[in-house]
Every structure is written in structure tokens, then in C-alpha cells.
């Protein structure tokens, strides 16, 4: 594994992402084990970003991974942590501010 994380915890080179990288970033975010359900969220965020080049609204995430509404939360997985684990770039201050955390 050869990859870099910047000061804020974002993967520097998106191409270097794989699921092992994801697990290491997760540890950096304080998540010891990524469950299958968490990996579903992370894979969805990657595919959404590829299609739309944007941060998805959380209801869309939950709907697509077949979880109940408001599934992306502190108990399950923090949305910004999920985004970082998915190896995606800084979504901008306003997205961070408006994510319910």
C-alpha cells in the first residue's frame, strides 16, 4: 500500500484507493472495523461522486444502500468520515458546516 493522507484526513491521490486503503483511513477516523453496511455507504459515495462530482444528500445515501432514513449518523457512520474513507476530496467548508454533526 502506498498512499498519502493530508492534514485533514483526505486521501491525496484518488487513484491509490482500494478497500485496504479504506480500512486504514477508517482507523485514522477512529473506526476500527468497517462492516459490510458501512462499506455499502462508502461504495455508494464513490459511485455518486463519479457520476455527479458532488456530495450526495444523506437521504439519497440511505435509500440507495437500503437503510432507514437518516441512517448516516454518529451511531452508524459519520457522513464526513464515510466520505474520507471513500477516498474523496475535501467537499468544501459549506458542505461540512451543513452536515448534521
Amino acid at each position, binding site marked *: 500500500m502506498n498512499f498519502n493522507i493530508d492534514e485533514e484526513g483526505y486521501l491525496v491521490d484518488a487513484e491509490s484507493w482500494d478497500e485496504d486503503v479504506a480500512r486504514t483511513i477508517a482507523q485514522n477516523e477512529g473506526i476500527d472495523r468497517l462492516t459490510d453496511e458501512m462499506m455499502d455507504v462508502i461504495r455508494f459515495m464513490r459511485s455518486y461522486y463519479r457520476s455527479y*462530482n458532488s456530495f450526495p444528500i444523506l437521504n439519497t445515501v440511505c435509500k440507495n444502500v437500503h437503510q432507514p432514513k437518516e441512517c448516516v449518523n454518529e451511531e452508524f457512520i459519520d457522513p464526513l468520515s464515510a466520505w474520507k474513507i471513500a477516498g474523496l476530496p475535501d467537499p468544501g467548508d459549506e458542505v461540512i458546516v*451543513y452536515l448534521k454533526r
Partner: protein
Amino acid sequence: MADKEATATEEEPKVLTDLEKVGEPIVPRKKPNEIHPDELTGSIKIPKVQEGTAAGNKPYLCKSENMEKLGFPGDLREDWHDAAIAKMGDLLEKYKSLQVYMDICVKCGSCTDKCHYFIGTEDGKNMPVARAELFRKVYRKYFTTEGKILGKLAGAEKLDLELLGEWYSYFHQCSQCRRCSVFCPYGIDTAEISMAAREIMDHIGVGQKYTNDIIVKVHEVGNNLGMNPKALKATLESTEEDLEEETGKKIRLPLDEVGADVLMVTPSADFFASPHVESLLGYAKVFHQAGISWTFSSAASEAGNFGMFIGNYGQMQKVASRLTDAINEIKPKRLIVGECGHAWRIAYSFWNTLIGPFDSLDPNFKRPQHICEYTLDLVNRGAIKLDKSKNDHIIPTFHDSCNVARGARMGDKPGGQFTIPRDLIKASCNRYVEMDEETIMEKTFCCGGGGGLLTDDLLELRVKGAMPRMQAFSKVQESHGVNFLALICAICKAQFTKILPKYGVGMDVAGGVHQLVASAIDLGAKE
């Protein structure tokens, strides 16, 4: 492996550049778990003045790349001192009000205990008169005869790096809410002084990351949240599906529909965030039930305009000009603005001079109109029906947003910006409770996150600045069981959602006025 640890061990003591000296807090920023809000007692106590308790509150500096994209220098200019004074001279010339505010303060002290950031942080420099003094003493030094000759004896001071650092700190501890100006016998508007200070700082290469990054985002992608048109379309379609699931009806969230009667302009947070989206559903239900053809626009997918927060007229105009493109494309008859405080001030007070007149819009309607006025009119005419009993579990109070309360109006009568949102809440709920009169209407307290300060860099300031409002809220929570803080501003909604839990209050207590409309509206067949 991550190279985080590797670089950490090699790090040498860093020599700060002049720009970093200005941007670096004198005492370190607190971590979220080190921030302890005051206990909620229901009363707002005026603190004893302390020195430097808020000195750790400085937002991050904007990086050179984005400074340059906005036409500002990417680093502190070598001739920063002379450039700052020249810019101050330009602003004094351009804005006569600023010149007047410099000269007429008599230090009466009326404003000293009126600022939420002073009450919350206890730092003397957060008293409005002391904040303005940071600007005024430089003004005296370079623009008054007595200051030029007598210097410090006349209260004049040279602008040096240390003072510039204080500017960067304390002019980013003003949310430009203008509460102090209500109590000033001369009407001095400290917000305008803060805006001028930020404009001077940007001009010499000292910019704030949060506000400036967001303005770049609007220019490059179209809105503060960075949702491009394709993402916005997908988001609205997804939310439409949720709406159909909830109501069993096809209630639309149209985008870019040429020829729609109403163009709806709202903060992009309404598309993205919670509880904001609940109000968005409210707008959609109202239009649906009233049978109005309407649309959002991807060109004008942001009602907010952070150009105002940095006091830069050019940026304000450039952000606003996106609306002109939308009007030319959609060709609507009417223009309606969603729940957003500073956006309504800009729409009501500035759009006409920035990008108006709106000659292509129907003159029989206000150009623009606030969504609260629009909805209340439909209710009053019986065009839509609200079933208050659906909100019987809710005991609401209303938090006036500063920019709506003190920077704009609404409707046809003076004070409409106070009565219209309240009347709409009362039309949606059987119960309503008012907070202490010293904290509402024109005397309302800022939520603590306005004016371009809604960033986690300033979390401590945001928690402390929310204290007066939290005390007033806790009083009616205790006395009347109030369980809903009704809001008409995207910033207020985000600020309270984040800050309420710090005070031990559930975040779901904060929500929009149209969230109440959305749950009360009768979506049955019209008679």
C-alpha cells in the same frame, strides 16, 4: 502507509510569515471538547469586562489560490500598510456613512452590553464601541488633523502588524447583526465598519477562508454547497420520490422549467441539509396546492450572497448577476425568495440596485416577494388550508433573524417582517409563545453564526455567541414547554442544529417556518 507520522517527527519550529502572524490566534483555538457553554438559567447576565478572553477566536486564512481567484493578492502585500490606508481613504470617500460613523461616536456606552459576542465571551474588545475603536484609531491617525499631530494623545494609532492581527480577530467576531445600532442614539452601524475592515484586509491579502472559499464555489459551481446542475437535478428528483412516498401525491420540485410563472430562489442549504429540506418540502406543497407553475433554476441555485459579509460590492454584484441569467432564461412573471436571512436583506434592499430593475417581471406583484408573505396571503385568501391540529404536539416560538429584522421589511406595512412570519406560524399551530421582548423583533439576538462566521474554526465563538438566545429560549422552554424554535434563515438553522446539543437541548428543536406549514397543509382535493 500514511505519511502523517513521518512528517510529524521531522517538523522543526516554524517561523511564521507576516501573514501567518496576522492569522494566528494569540492563544490556541480550543478543541470542541474543551468548549464549555454557560449553564442555562433563563436570564441574560451582563458580564464583567475581561481582557483577551476571545483572543483565540480567529478563522483560518484563505489560501492564495482562492484569494487570487477573487482578484485579491495571494499573500500579504509588501506595501500592505500604505495599500490599507489608501483603501480606507477610498471607502471613506465612497461610503459617506462610514465617514460619519467614524466622526460621530460620543462614547456614550449604550452599545457596550448589546452584543451577543461580548455577553458570551466577556472580552472587552467585543463591545461594539471597542470593536469600532480598532478601526477609528487608525482613521484618526491618517485622516484627522488632531490625530496626525497629536498621535496617541488624540486616540490615534498607526496600523502595524499587531493591530492588523487584532482587526483580523475582532472584525471576525462581529456577525454584522446590527443589534448595537438599534441602541445607538446616533444609529452607528458597526456592521458597516466590520464590512469595511474585511474589505481592506482582503485588499492587502488577508482574507478569511470560509467566506472566500464559498464565493469561489459560487462562481465556479453555482452555489455555496457546490452542487452542480446535474447533481442538483438528481437531488431534487430523489427528494421528489421521498415526497411522493410521504404524501402519496405527485408533488413536484421542478428545475429550469422555461416559462414557469414563479422563479423560486432559495439558499442551496435547502436542497442539501436537515432541517432545511423540510422547509423546501413546505414550499413545494404550497405551490402544488395553490396550483401555481413554478421552478427552481440551476443558474440561480443560491439565494445567499457572501459578498456582503466581506463588504465587497463587486463580488456581491457578481454573485447576484447569476439571477439575471436565470430570469433571462426562465422568463418568469414572479420572483419569490426562500427562508434565508442575509439573502432576504440582499434581495429586498440591494437586488434592485445591484441587478435591477426587474422590468420583465409582473409589476402587480412585489419584485421580489418573501415566501412567508406569499404563503400567508394564500392562507388568508383561502387558496390553501392549514390544519393546525396536525401540529398540536408543537409549541413554537419564533427567532427573528437579524438581517430580516433589522435589514429589510416584508409585506405592505411597517413591521411586516415581524408580523408575517408570526402570523404564518399561528396559522399553522394552535399554540404560540413569544420569548422575552428584549430579545425579539428589532432587538433580536443573532444566532451566533451569521455574517460569515458559520465555520468550525470559530466553534467556541459560535457556542458563546448563541448564549443570549439560548437563555431566552430556555426561559420559555421552562415556563411554557416550548419545544420548537421556528426559523427563517439557513444560517440560523445550521447554527442552532449544531449548538443546541452543546447546551443540552435536542437539535430537532430547530426548524423552519415552512416546516410547520408542510406538516399542517391540507393536501386534499380543492373544493
